[in-house]
């Protein structure tokens, strides 16, 4: 029998990694401060560099943040569905012991 989806996808590992990436990306914005200082001393070189790193930082933050939220939502929903389907996953007993014996006797 197939395992439920929630058991096949390593949600916990994905959430842990995404949370760490988001945390680091949030800290990366500190680089902008340094690059701002570079701009002051070298206007031509600094500006495009700042924009590029800014995009990378914000991109990393948004991507990991959105993925984190979506993964947590998917995890919660699939866990709820998984526990619901598990509770109804007991093999259904069509005949009790007596009726089985009874049918043998009839043969």
């Amino acid at each position: 029998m197939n395992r439920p989806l929630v058991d096949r996808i390593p949600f916990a590992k994905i959430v842990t990694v995404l949370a760490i990436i988001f945390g680091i990306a949030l800290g990366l914005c500190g680089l902008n401060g340094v690059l701002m200082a570079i701009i002051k001393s070298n206007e031509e070189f600094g500006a495009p560099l700042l924009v590029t790193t800014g995009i990378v930082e914000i991109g990393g933050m948004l991507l990991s943040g959105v993925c984190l939220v979506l993964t947590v939502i998917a995890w919660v929903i699939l866990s709820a569905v998984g526990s619901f389907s598990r509770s109804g996953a007991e093999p259904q007993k069509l005949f009790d012991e007596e009726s089985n014996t009874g049918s043998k006797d009839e043969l």
Partner: protein
Amino acid sequence: MLSIGSHPAWHPLFETLAYAAGYAVFRFNRDRQGDVVAEPQRWTVMAAAAVGALLGSRVLGLAEQWPTVVAAWNSRHILALLLSPGGKTIAGGLLGGWIGVEAMKKLTGIQRRTGDLFALPLCVGIAVGRIGCFIAGIADDTYGKPTSLPWAVDLGDGIGRHPVQIYEILFLLLLAILVSKRAARREGTQFRIFLASYLSWRLFIDFFKPQPLIHGLNLIQWSCLAGILFLALDWLRGRATNEQTAG
């Protein structure tokens, strides 16, 4: 006075190294002393710790700078502030992670104490991260108050300051030795020793940091105090339960 300067670009590098070092020590620790829960449960606990720590560190980090938050709210720049650099604190991360794990354990029915394996990795990870805070200098919000002591450091503003990050690294080294001793202790004790010690340390060392105060303490110190009180209550409750079981 030793001149260090301000190099914030190193901070993210050391933050990444801190996570990597912490995880490496965690793996080493788990291989050496085993785990009280199965691997899927351990990852569930780690996910709860990571998300709780992320939220806790950001919420307390921003709350600590409440005058800035109030100003940003009044000038309608709160979103810009939320996406701004800095504004994360280790004490908030620890408390948030702890709350996250306890909530997840309640939800998933994990009964065992799972924190012991985190005690040593947290000591190592925080110590490595603090190197980044130190090198970042005045650009990071973790610098100390001005002092004329011989070991004062200039973190980029020309003023001699307490090297509070170095004090913390030394403290963490001592704490690491304490929590890594393999004495026969009850499950969960190692983590509680670490947490109580670190929160007490922050309660003390934050008197050497120039932060906005509320009734004599900054918000991190109030949070540490709340965490210590909760730990004390939890310890007393555990002791009472043990006595009942023994009786």
